[in-house]
Protein backbone atom coordinates (compact mmCIF):
# COMPACT_ATOMS: atom_id res chain seq x y z
CA UNK A 1 0.00 0.00 0.00
CA UNK A 2 1.35 3.38 -1.11
CA UNK A 3 -0.09 6.03 1.17
CA UNK A 4 0.54 8.76 -1.42
CA UNK A 5 -1.63 6.99 -3.95
CA UNK A 6 -4.32 6.33 -1.37
CA UNK A 7 -4.25 9.98 -0.34
CA UNK A 8 -4.68 11.02 -3.97
CA UNK A 9 -7.58 8.62 -4.47
CA UNK A 10 -9.26 9.74 -1.25
CA UNK A 11 -9.16 13.36 -2.32
CA UNK A 12 -10.00 12.54 -5.93
CA UNK A 13 -13.13 10.71 -4.86
CA UNK A 14 -14.08 13.69 -2.70
CA UNK A 15 -13.51 16.03 -5.63
CA UNK A 16 -15.66 13.98 -7.97
CA UNK A 17 -18.45 13.83 -5.43
CA UNK A 18 -18.35 17.65 -5.30
CA UNK A 19 -18.89 17.77 -9.06
CA UNK A 20 -22.54 16.82 -8.75
CA UNK A 21 -23.48 19.75 -6.49
CA UNK A 22 -21.34 21.80 -8.87
CA UNK A 23 -23.55 20.55 -11.67
CA UNK A 24 -26.59 21.47 -9.59
CA UNK A 25 -25.43 25.08 -9.67
CA UNK A 26 -24.34 24.99 -13.29
CA UNK A 27 -27.74 23.68 -14.33
CA UNK A 28 -29.69 25.47 -11.60
CA UNK A 29 -28.33 28.87 -12.56
CA UNK A 30 -29.35 28.24 -16.16
CA UNK A 31 -32.90 27.33 -15.17
CA UNK A 32 -35.62 29.84 -14.59
CA UNK A 33 -36.16 31.10 -11.05
CA UNK A 34 -39.31 29.04 -10.73
CA UNK A 35 -37.60 25.74 -11.46
CA UNK A 36 -34.11 26.09 -10.00
CA UNK A 37 -34.82 23.90 -6.99
CA UNK A 38 -36.17 21.05 -9.07
CA UNK A 39 -33.09 21.26 -11.25
CA UNK A 40 -30.81 21.10 -8.22
CA UNK A 41 -32.85 18.32 -6.68
CA UNK A 42 -32.31 16.16 -9.72
CA UNK A 43 -28.59 16.34 -8.96
CA UNK A 44 -28.94 15.80 -5.23
CA UNK A 45 -31.40 13.00 -5.88
CA UNK A 46 -28.90 11.45 -8.28
CA UNK A 47 -26.35 11.35 -5.46
CA UNK A 48 -28.80 9.66 -3.12
CA UNK A 49 -30.21 6.98 -5.40
CA UNK A 50 -27.03 6.71 -7.46
CA UNK A 51 -25.11 5.69 -4.35
CA UNK A 52 -27.76 3.15 -3.46
CA UNK A 53 -27.77 1.74 -7.00
CA UNK A 54 -23.99 1.51 -7.01
CA UNK A 55 -23.65 -0.11 -3.61
CA UNK A 56 -26.32 -2.70 -4.32
CA UNK A 57 -25.79 -3.87 -7.90
CA UNK A 58 -23.92 -1.28 -9.93
CA UNK A 59 -20.49 -1.85 -8.44
CA UNK A 60 -20.75 -5.57 -8.97
CA UNK A 61 -21.93 -5.22 -12.56
CA UNK A 62 -19.17 -2.79 -13.45
CA UNK A 63 -16.47 -4.76 -11.68
CA UNK A 64 -14.09 -7.20 -13.23
CA UNK A 65 -14.63 -10.14 -10.89
CA UNK A 66 -17.11 -12.89 -11.63
CA UNK A 67 -18.81 -12.09 -14.86
CA UNK A 68 -21.78 -13.32 -16.81
CA UNK A 69 -20.36 -14.58 -20.11
CA UNK A 70 -17.67 -11.95 -19.70
CA UNK A 71 -20.30 -9.40 -20.74
CA UNK A 72 -21.20 -7.90 -17.39
CA UNK A 73 -20.05 -8.44 -13.87
CA UNK A 74 -22.26 -10.65 -11.73
CA UNK A 75 -24.82 -8.21 -10.27
CA UNK A 76 -24.68 -10.02 -6.94
CA UNK A 77 -20.93 -10.55 -7.06
CA UNK A 78 -20.28 -8.07 -4.28
CA UNK A 79 -23.77 -7.06 -3.19
CA UNK A 80 -23.42 -4.23 -0.66
CA UNK A 81 -19.68 -3.95 -1.48
CA UNK A 82 -19.22 -5.90 1.74
CA UNK A 83 -16.39 -8.13 0.64
CA UNK A 84 -14.51 -5.14 -0.78
CA UNK A 85 -14.94 -3.11 2.39
CA UNK A 86 -13.99 -6.05 4.57
CA UNK A 87 -10.94 -6.85 2.46
CA UNK A 88 -9.14 -4.13 4.38
CA UNK A 89 -7.37 -3.12 1.18
CA UNK A 90 -7.37 0.65 1.13
CA UNK A 91 -6.98 0.99 -2.65
CA UNK A 92 -9.86 -1.41 -3.38
CA UNK A 93 -12.12 0.27 -0.86
CA UNK A 94 -11.56 3.81 -2.01
CA UNK A 95 -11.71 2.73 -5.65
CA UNK A 96 -15.20 1.41 -5.00
CA UNK A 97 -16.09 4.79 -3.56
CA UNK A 98 -14.43 6.60 -6.46
CA UNK A 99 -16.55 4.51 -8.82
CA UNK A 100 -19.73 5.59 -7.07
CA UNK A 101 -18.96 9.23 -7.71
CA UNK A 102 -18.59 8.55 -11.44
CA UNK A 103 -21.92 6.75 -11.62
CA UNK A 104 -23.57 9.65 -9.79
CA UNK A 105 -22.28 12.48 -11.92
CA UNK A 106 -23.01 10.58 -15.14
CA UNK A 107 -26.67 10.12 -14.40
CA UNK A 108 -26.95 13.63 -12.98
CA UNK A 109 -25.66 15.07 -16.27
CA UNK A 110 -28.69 13.66 -18.07
CA UNK A 111 -31.10 15.79 -16.04
CA UNK A 112 -30.14 18.89 -17.98
CA UNK A 113 -32.07 17.73 -21.01
CA UNK A 114 -35.40 17.48 -19.20
CA UNK A 115 -35.37 20.67 -17.16
CA UNK A 116 -38.62 22.06 -15.76
CA UNK A 117 -40.85 19.13 -16.61
CA UNK A 118 -39.96 15.78 -15.02
CA UNK A 119 -41.76 14.36 -12.01
CA UNK A 120 -39.24 14.15 -9.22
CA UNK A 121 -40.23 10.66 -8.13
CA UNK A 122 -39.99 9.38 -11.67
CA UNK A 123 -36.56 10.93 -11.99
CA UNK A 124 -35.38 9.07 -8.90
CA UNK A 125 -36.63 5.79 -10.32
CA UNK A 126 -34.99 6.54 -13.66
CA UNK A 127 -31.66 7.43 -12.04
CA UNK A 128 -31.64 4.27 -9.95
CA UNK A 129 -32.38 2.01 -12.91
CA UNK A 130 -30.11 3.84 -15.32
CA UNK A 131 -27.07 3.52 -13.07
CA UNK A 132 -27.62 -0.21 -12.82
CA UNK A 133 -28.73 -0.99 -16.35
CA UNK A 134 -26.84 1.49 -18.48
CA UNK A 135 -23.93 3.10 -16.64
CA UNK A 136 -22.59 0.01 -14.94
CA UNK A 137 -22.49 -2.29 -18.00
CA UNK A 138 -20.81 0.37 -20.16
CA UNK A 139 -18.29 1.01 -17.38
CA UNK A 140 -17.62 -2.72 -17.36
CA UNK A 141 -16.94 -2.86 -21.09
CA UNK A 142 -14.59 0.08 -21.08
CA UNK A 143 -12.87 -0.18 -17.72
CA UNK A 144 -13.99 -3.39 -16.08
CA UNK A 145 -11.70 -5.72 -17.93
CA UNK A 146 -8.10 -4.75 -18.42
CA UNK A 147 -8.62 -2.70 -21.57
CA UNK A 148 -11.65 -1.33 -23.30
CA UNK A 149 -10.93 -3.54 -26.31
CA UNK A 150 -11.45 -6.73 -24.35
CA UNK A 151 -14.66 -5.45 -22.91
CA UNK A 152 -16.16 -4.52 -26.23
CA UNK A 153 -14.99 -7.72 -27.81
CA UNK A 154 -16.69 -9.66 -25.05
CA UNK A 155 -19.85 -7.70 -25.69
CA UNK A 156 -19.77 -8.29 -29.43
CA UNK A 157 -18.53 -11.87 -29.22
CA UNK A 158 -15.02 -12.69 -28.09
CA UNK A 159 -12.28 -12.33 -30.70
CA UNK A 160 -14.68 -10.35 -32.84
CA UNK A 161 -13.42 -8.34 -35.78
CA UNK A 162 -13.78 -4.95 -34.22
CA UNK A 163 -11.24 -4.62 -31.48
CA UNK A 164 -9.05 -7.71 -31.39
CA UNK A 165 -5.43 -7.05 -32.33
CA UNK A 166 -6.12 -3.36 -32.79
CA UNK A 167 -4.86 -0.55 -30.56
CA UNK A 168 -7.22 0.89 -28.02
CA UNK A 169 -9.86 2.04 -27.67
CA UNK A 170 -8.61 4.50 -25.08
CA UNK A 171 -10.87 6.25 -22.63
CA UNK A 172 -8.82 7.46 -19.71
CA UNK A 173 -11.50 9.08 -17.61
CA UNK A 174 -14.81 8.56 -19.32
CA UNK A 175 -15.42 10.11 -22.73
CA UNK A 176 -17.56 7.16 -23.75
CA UNK A 177 -18.72 5.83 -20.40
CA UNK A 178 -19.67 9.21 -19.00
CA UNK A 179 -20.19 11.88 -21.62
CA UNK A 180 -21.30 10.10 -24.76
CA UNK A 181 -23.41 7.84 -22.60
CA UNK A 182 -25.08 10.71 -20.73
CA UNK A 183 -25.39 12.79 -23.89
CA UNK A 184 -27.25 10.08 -25.76
CA UNK A 185 -29.47 9.35 -22.78
CA UNK A 186 -30.23 13.06 -22.54
CA UNK A 187 -31.28 13.18 -26.15
CA UNK A 188 -33.52 10.16 -25.73
CA UNK A 189 -35.22 11.59 -22.66
CA UNK A 190 -35.66 15.00 -24.27
CA UNK A 191 -37.44 13.33 -27.17
CA UNK A 192 -39.46 11.09 -24.89
CA UNK A 193 -40.72 13.89 -22.65
CA UNK A 194 -41.28 16.37 -25.44
CA UNK A 195 -40.68 20.10 -25.60
CA UNK A 196 -41.57 22.47 -22.82
CA UNK A 197 -44.51 24.82 -23.23
CA UNK A 198 -43.09 27.87 -24.95
CA UNK A 199 -39.92 26.14 -26.21
CA UNK A 200 -38.41 28.13 -29.03
CA UNK A 201 -40.88 30.96 -28.46
CA UNK A 202 -40.46 32.14 -24.89
CA UNK A 203 -36.90 32.99 -23.99
CA UNK A 204 -36.33 30.95 -20.76
CA UNK A 205 -33.12 32.75 -20.00
CA UNK A 206 -30.76 31.72 -17.18
CA UNK A 207 -32.01 33.22 -13.95
CA UNK A 208 -28.68 33.50 -12.13
CA UNK A 209 -25.48 33.63 -14.15
CA UNK A 210 -23.11 33.85 -11.17
CA UNK A 211 -24.51 30.47 -10.09
CA UNK A 212 -23.65 29.13 -13.54
CA UNK A 213 -20.10 30.41 -13.06
CA UNK A 214 -19.94 28.87 -9.61
CA UNK A 215 -21.10 25.57 -10.99
CA UNK A 216 -18.52 25.69 -13.76
CA UNK A 217 -15.80 26.45 -11.23
CA UNK A 218 -16.77 23.59 -8.92
CA UNK A 219 -17.01 21.26 -11.90
CA UNK A 220 -13.53 22.22 -13.03
CA UNK A 221 -12.10 21.82 -9.56
CA UNK A 222 -13.78 18.46 -9.13
CA UNK A 223 -12.72 17.38 -12.60
CA UNK A 224 -9.09 17.30 -11.48
CA UNK A 225 -10.10 14.35 -9.34
CA UNK A 226 -12.04 12.92 -12.25
CA UNK A 227 -9.26 13.09 -14.80
CA UNK A 228 -6.04 13.00 -12.79
CA UNK A 229 -7.63 10.67 -10.25
CA UNK A 230 -8.30 8.17 -13.03
CA UNK A 231 -4.58 7.40 -12.94
CA UNK A 232 -5.30 5.61 -9.64
CA UNK A 233 -1.92 6.86 -8.47
CA UNK A 234 -0.13 10.13 -7.78
CA UNK A 235 2.23 9.66 -10.69
CA UNK A 236 3.28 11.15 -14.01
CA UNK A 237 0.03 10.05 -15.66
CA UNK A 238 -1.90 11.99 -13.07
CA UNK A 239 0.38 15.01 -13.46
CA UNK A 240 0.02 14.94 -17.23
CA UNK A 241 -3.74 14.59 -16.96
CA UNK A 242 -3.78 17.61 -14.63
CA UNK A 243 -1.85 19.80 -17.04
CA UNK A 244 -3.83 18.71 -20.08
CA UNK A 245 -7.10 19.28 -18.28
CA UNK A 246 -6.14 22.85 -17.48
CA UNK A 247 -4.79 23.60 -20.94
CA UNK A 248 -7.68 22.13 -22.91
CA UNK A 249 -10.29 23.81 -20.71
CA UNK A 250 -8.65 27.22 -21.02
CA UNK A 251 -8.55 26.88 -24.77
CA UNK A 252 -12.17 25.76 -24.93
CA UNK A 253 -13.17 28.95 -23.14
CA UNK A 254 -11.35 30.90 -25.81
CA UNK A 255 -12.88 28.80 -28.57
CA UNK A 256 -16.43 29.33 -27.33
CA UNK A 257 -15.94 33.06 -26.77
CA UNK A 258 -14.41 33.44 -30.22
CA UNK A 259 -17.48 31.97 -31.88
CA UNK A 260 -19.74 34.24 -29.86
CA UNK A 261 -17.69 37.32 -30.59
CA UNK A 262 -17.77 36.62 -34.31
CA UNK A 263 -21.35 35.42 -34.54
CA UNK A 264 -23.18 37.49 -31.92
CA UNK A 265 -20.77 40.37 -31.42
CA UNK A 266 -20.33 39.68 -27.71
CA UNK A 267 -18.44 37.20 -25.57
CA UNK A 268 -20.77 36.12 -22.77
CA UNK A 269 -20.22 34.76 -19.30
CA UNK A 270 -22.57 31.90 -20.10
CA UNK A 271 -20.30 31.18 -23.04
CA UNK A 272 -17.22 31.13 -20.83
CA UNK A 273 -18.87 28.79 -18.34
CA UNK A 274 -20.10 26.57 -21.14
CA UNK A 275 -16.64 26.56 -22.69
CA UNK A 276 -15.24 25.35 -19.39
CA UNK A 277 -17.50 22.33 -19.45
CA UNK A 278 -17.02 21.61 -23.15
CA UNK A 279 -13.26 21.65 -22.69
CA UNK A 280 -13.38 19.42 -19.63
CA UNK A 281 -15.60 16.94 -21.44
CA UNK A 282 -13.43 16.76 -24.53
CA UNK A 283 -10.15 16.24 -22.68
CA UNK A 284 -11.65 13.60 -20.37
CA UNK A 285 -10.92 10.54 -22.54
CA UNK A 286 -7.70 12.01 -23.89
CA UNK A 287 -6.09 13.61 -20.87
CA UNK A 288 -3.32 11.02 -20.59
CA UNK A 289 -2.94 10.42 -24.32
CA UNK A 290 -1.87 13.80 -25.62
CA UNK A 291 0.85 16.36 -25.10
CA UNK A 292 0.25 20.07 -24.57
CA UNK A 293 -0.32 20.77 -28.26
CA UNK A 294 -2.86 18.01 -28.41
CA UNK A 295 -4.63 19.50 -25.41
CA UNK A 296 -4.66 22.90 -27.07
CA UNK A 297 -6.19 21.52 -30.26
CA UNK A 298 -8.74 19.37 -28.44
CA UNK A 299 -9.82 22.24 -26.19
CA UNK A 300 -10.04 24.93 -28.83
CA UNK A 301 -12.05 22.77 -31.20
CA UNK A 302 -14.29 21.51 -28.40
CA UNK A 303 -15.22 25.10 -27.55
CA UNK A 304 -15.96 25.90 -31.16
CA UNK A 305 -17.91 22.74 -31.89
CA UNK A 306 -20.07 22.84 -28.80
CA UNK A 307 -20.84 26.54 -29.15
CA UNK A 308 -22.17 25.79 -32.60
CA UNK A 309 -23.92 22.58 -31.59
CA UNK A 310 -26.10 24.10 -28.87
CA UNK A 311 -28.11 25.81 -31.59
CA UNK A 312 -29.11 22.53 -33.25
CA UNK A 313 -32.01 21.86 -30.92
CA UNK A 314 -33.89 24.85 -32.32
CA UNK A 315 -33.32 23.57 -35.84
CA UNK A 316 -34.39 20.01 -35.12
CA UNK A 317 -37.00 20.84 -32.52
CA UNK A 318 -35.90 18.65 -29.60
CA UNK A 319 -35.91 20.44 -26.27
CA UNK A 320 -32.54 19.46 -24.82
CA UNK A 321 -33.10 22.23 -22.34
CA UNK A 322 -29.61 22.79 -20.93
CA UNK A 323 -27.66 21.30 -23.84
CA UNK A 324 -26.58 17.90 -22.67
CA UNK A 325 -26.33 16.90 -26.31
CA UNK A 326 -24.56 20.01 -27.56
CA UNK A 327 -22.01 19.93 -24.77
CA UNK A 328 -21.59 16.36 -23.52
CA UNK A 329 -22.40 14.29 -26.56
CA UNK A 330 -20.65 16.55 -29.05
CA UNK A 331 -17.56 17.33 -26.99
CA UNK A 332 -17.43 13.78 -25.66
CA UNK A 333 -17.47 12.40 -29.18
CA UNK A 334 -14.89 14.90 -30.31
CA UNK A 335 -12.52 14.06 -27.47
CA UNK A 336 -12.94 10.33 -28.03
CA UNK A 337 -12.23 10.62 -31.72
CA UNK A 338 -9.44 13.16 -31.24
CA UNK A 339 -7.36 10.50 -29.54
CA UNK A 340 -7.22 8.80 -32.91
CA UNK A 341 -5.85 12.01 -34.35
CA UNK A 342 -3.53 13.61 -31.82
CA UNK A 343 -2.53 10.95 -29.28
CA UNK A 344 1.19 11.53 -28.88
CA UNK A 345 2.12 7.96 -28.18
CA UNK A 346 4.49 9.14 -25.48
CA UNK A 347 2.48 8.02 -22.45
CA UNK A 348 0.22 5.39 -23.89
CA UNK A 349 1.64 3.22 -26.62
CA UNK A 350 -0.36 4.10 -29.70
CA UNK A 351 0.10 7.43 -31.49
CA UNK A 352 -2.75 9.04 -33.42
CA UNK A 353 -2.97 9.79 -37.11
CA UNK A 354 -1.12 13.10 -36.92
CA UNK A 355 1.56 11.68 -34.64
CA UNK A 356 2.68 8.95 -36.97
CA UNK A 357 0.09 6.33 -36.15
CA UNK A 358 -2.24 4.88 -38.73
CA UNK A 359 -5.96 5.38 -39.19
CA UNK A 360 -6.84 2.28 -37.19
CA UNK A 361 -6.81 3.98 -33.79
CA UNK A 362 -9.32 6.50 -35.06
CA UNK A 363 -11.47 3.66 -36.31
CA UNK A 364 -11.36 1.87 -33.01
CA UNK A 365 -12.24 5.03 -31.13
CA UNK A 366 -15.19 5.58 -33.45
CA UNK A 367 -16.33 2.00 -33.01
CA UNK A 368 -16.21 2.30 -29.22
CA UNK A 369 -18.23 5.49 -29.42
CA UNK A 370 -20.68 3.82 -31.77
CA UNK A 371 -21.28 0.84 -29.52
CA UNK A 372 -21.84 3.15 -26.57
CA UNK A 373 -24.29 5.30 -28.52
CA UNK A 374 -26.35 2.36 -29.70
CA UNK A 375 -26.51 0.64 -26.34
CA UNK A 376 -27.22 3.82 -24.40
CA UNK A 377 -29.97 4.91 -26.77
CA UNK A 378 -31.80 1.60 -26.71
CA UNK A 379 -31.47 0.93 -23.00
CA UNK A 380 -32.39 4.47 -22.01
CA UNK A 381 -35.41 4.35 -24.27
CA UNK A 382 -36.65 1.16 -22.69
CA UNK A 383 -36.28 2.52 -19.15
CA UNK A 384 -37.85 5.82 -20.15
CA UNK A 385 -40.82 4.20 -21.84
CA UNK A 386 -41.40 1.90 -18.90
CA UNK A 387 -41.57 4.88 -16.58
CA UNK A 388 -43.69 6.96 -18.94
CA UNK A 389 -46.34 4.30 -19.26
CA UNK A 390 -46.45 3.28 -15.62
CA UNK A 391 -45.94 6.10 -13.14
CA UNK A 392 -45.66 8.83 -15.79
CA UNK A 393 -42.60 10.98 -16.39
CA UNK A 394 -43.88 14.47 -17.08
CA UNK A 395 -45.74 17.05 -15.01
CA UNK A 396 -48.85 18.78 -16.31
CA UNK A 397 -48.71 21.94 -18.39
CA UNK A 398 -50.24 23.89 -15.53
CA UNK A 399 -47.38 22.86 -13.26
CA UNK A 400 -44.86 23.95 -15.86
CA UNK A 401 -46.43 27.39 -16.09
CA UNK A 402 -46.82 27.99 -12.38
CA UNK A 403 -43.36 26.53 -11.71
CA UNK A 404 -42.23 23.02 -10.94
CA UNK A 405 -40.49 24.07 -7.71
CA UNK A 406 -43.78 24.89 -6.12
CA UNK A 407 -45.77 21.93 -7.32
CA UNK A 408 -43.16 19.18 -7.03
CA UNK A 409 -41.29 20.43 -3.97
CA UNK A 410 -43.69 22.89 -2.34
CA UNK A 411 -40.99 25.55 -2.22
CA UNK A 412 -39.83 28.70 -3.91
CA UNK A 413 -36.13 29.39 -4.14
CA UNK A 414 -35.82 32.98 -2.99
CA UNK A 415 -37.38 35.45 -0.62
CA UNK A 416 -34.51 37.84 -0.35
CA UNK A 417 -36.46 40.95 0.46
CA UNK A 418 -37.60 39.73 3.87
Amino acid at each position, binding site marked *: MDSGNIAWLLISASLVLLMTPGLAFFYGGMSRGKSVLNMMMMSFGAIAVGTLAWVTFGYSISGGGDTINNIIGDPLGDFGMISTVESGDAMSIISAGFGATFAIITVALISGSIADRAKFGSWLVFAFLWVILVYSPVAHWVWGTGTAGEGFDALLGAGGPLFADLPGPYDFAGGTVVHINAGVAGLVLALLLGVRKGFGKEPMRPHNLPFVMLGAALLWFGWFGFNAGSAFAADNWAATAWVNTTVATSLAILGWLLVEKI*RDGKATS*LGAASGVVAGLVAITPACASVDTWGAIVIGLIAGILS*SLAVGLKYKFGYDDSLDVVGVHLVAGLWGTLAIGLVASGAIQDDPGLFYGGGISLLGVQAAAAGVTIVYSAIATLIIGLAIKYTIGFRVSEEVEVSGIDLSEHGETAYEEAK
Partner: protein
Amino acid sequence: MKLVTAIIQPHRVDEVRAALEAAGVKGVTVSEAAGYGRQKGHTEVYRGAEYTVDLVPKTRLEVLVDDADAASVTEAIVSAAQTGKIGDGKVWTVPVDDVARVRTGEHGADAL
Protein backbone atom coordinates in the same frame (compact mmCIF):
# COMPACT_ATOMS: atom_id res chain seq x y z
CA MET B 1 -55.49 68.12 -3.67
CA LYS B 2 -53.69 66.48 -6.55
CA LEU B 3 -51.52 63.46 -7.05
CA VAL B 4 -48.65 64.07 -9.43
CA THR B 5 -47.21 60.84 -10.81
CA ALA B 6 -43.97 60.81 -12.77
CA ILE B 7 -42.36 58.00 -14.73
CA ILE B 8 -38.69 58.93 -15.17
CA GLN B 9 -35.29 57.52 -15.99
CA PRO B 10 -33.90 55.77 -12.88
CA HIS B 11 -30.65 57.70 -12.98
CA ARG B 12 -32.48 61.04 -12.65
CA VAL B 13 -34.07 60.27 -9.31
CA ASP B 14 -31.53 62.16 -7.25
CA GLU B 15 -31.85 65.29 -9.37
CA VAL B 16 -35.64 65.20 -9.23
CA ARG B 17 -35.63 64.66 -5.53
CA ALA B 18 -33.39 67.67 -5.06
CA ALA B 19 -35.69 69.76 -7.26
CA LEU B 20 -38.72 68.67 -5.27
CA GLU B 21 -37.03 69.58 -2.03
CA ALA B 22 -36.15 72.95 -3.48
CA ALA B 23 -39.83 73.34 -4.42
CA GLY B 24 -40.82 72.71 -0.83
CA VAL B 25 -42.26 69.24 -1.32
CA LYS B 26 -41.76 67.29 1.88
CA GLY B 27 -42.50 63.73 0.90
CA VAL B 28 -42.35 61.46 -2.12
CA THR B 29 -43.20 57.83 -2.71
CA VAL B 30 -40.93 55.97 -5.10
CA SER B 31 -41.32 52.62 -6.81
CA GLU B 32 -39.82 50.59 -9.60
CA ALA B 33 -41.52 50.28 -12.93
CA ALA B 34 -40.72 49.51 -16.52
CA GLY B 35 -42.04 50.95 -19.71
CA TYR B 36 -42.72 50.38 -23.36
CA GLY B 37 -42.78 53.37 -25.64
CA ARG B 38 -40.76 54.99 -28.36
CA GLN B 39 -37.55 54.00 -26.61
CA LYS B 40 -36.07 50.76 -27.86
CA GLY B 41 -35.16 47.87 -25.57
CA HIS B 42 -32.20 45.61 -26.13
CA THR B 43 -31.31 42.08 -27.09
CA GLU B 44 -29.49 39.52 -24.98
CA VAL B 45 -28.10 36.29 -26.38
CA TYR B 46 -27.88 33.11 -24.30
CA ARG B 47 -26.19 30.15 -25.96
CA GLY B 48 -27.12 31.59 -29.31
CA ALA B 49 -30.79 32.09 -28.44
CA GLU B 50 -31.90 35.70 -28.70
CA TYR B 51 -33.85 37.21 -25.89
CA THR B 52 -35.46 40.57 -26.53
CA VAL B 53 -35.97 42.79 -23.53
CA ASP B 54 -38.31 45.53 -24.62
CA LEU B 55 -39.27 46.76 -21.19
CA VAL B 56 -37.00 49.59 -20.16
CA PRO B 57 -36.50 50.16 -16.41
CA LYS B 58 -38.13 53.33 -15.10
CA THR B 59 -38.78 54.86 -11.73
CA ARG B 60 -42.18 56.01 -10.63
CA LEU B 61 -42.52 58.98 -8.28
CA GLU B 62 -45.76 59.98 -6.60
CA VAL B 63 -46.24 63.31 -4.93
CA LEU B 64 -49.36 64.53 -3.20
CA VAL B 65 -49.65 68.32 -3.48
CA ASP B 66 -52.08 71.12 -2.92
CA ASP B 67 -54.12 71.99 -5.99
CA ALA B 68 -52.19 75.18 -6.42
CA ASP B 69 -48.82 73.48 -6.53
CA ALA B 70 -49.59 70.78 -9.08
CA ALA B 71 -48.41 72.75 -12.09
CA SER B 72 -45.21 74.02 -10.53
CA VAL B 73 -44.32 70.60 -9.16
CA THR B 74 -44.90 69.11 -12.60
CA GLU B 75 -42.58 71.68 -14.12
CA ALA B 76 -39.96 71.08 -11.44
CA ILE B 77 -39.99 67.35 -12.19
CA VAL B 78 -39.96 67.82 -15.95
CA SER B 79 -36.98 70.12 -15.89
CA ALA B 80 -35.00 68.04 -13.39
CA ALA B 81 -35.66 64.74 -15.14
CA GLN B 82 -35.09 65.97 -18.66
CA THR B 83 -32.11 64.63 -20.59
CA GLY B 84 -33.66 65.25 -24.01
CA LYS B 85 -33.32 61.62 -25.02
CA ILE B 86 -36.25 59.40 -25.99
CA GLY B 87 -37.53 57.59 -22.95
CA ASP B 88 -37.39 60.47 -20.49
CA GLY B 89 -40.92 59.61 -19.38
CA LYS B 90 -44.22 61.22 -18.46
CA VAL B 91 -45.68 63.25 -15.64
CA TRP B 92 -49.41 63.32 -15.02
CA THR B 93 -51.83 64.76 -12.49
CA VAL B 94 -55.01 63.27 -11.11
CA PRO B 95 -57.51 64.82 -8.73
CA VAL B 96 -57.52 63.57 -5.17
CA ASP B 97 -60.62 63.63 -2.99
CA ASP B 98 -58.92 63.25 0.33
CA VAL B 99 -55.60 62.49 2.03
CA ALA B 100 -55.04 61.11 5.53
CA ARG B 101 -51.84 60.86 7.53
CA VAL B 102 -51.72 57.43 9.13
CA ARG B 103 -49.68 58.47 12.15
CA THR B 104 -52.10 61.16 13.31
CA GLY B 105 -55.31 60.57 11.42
CA GLU B 106 -55.18 64.16 10.14
CA HIS B 107 -56.96 64.81 6.85
CA GLY B 108 -56.57 67.21 3.94
CA ALA B 109 -53.67 69.60 3.47
CA ASP B 110 -52.50 69.02 7.04
CA ALA B 111 -51.82 65.43 6.15
CA LEU B 112 -49.18 66.27 3.53
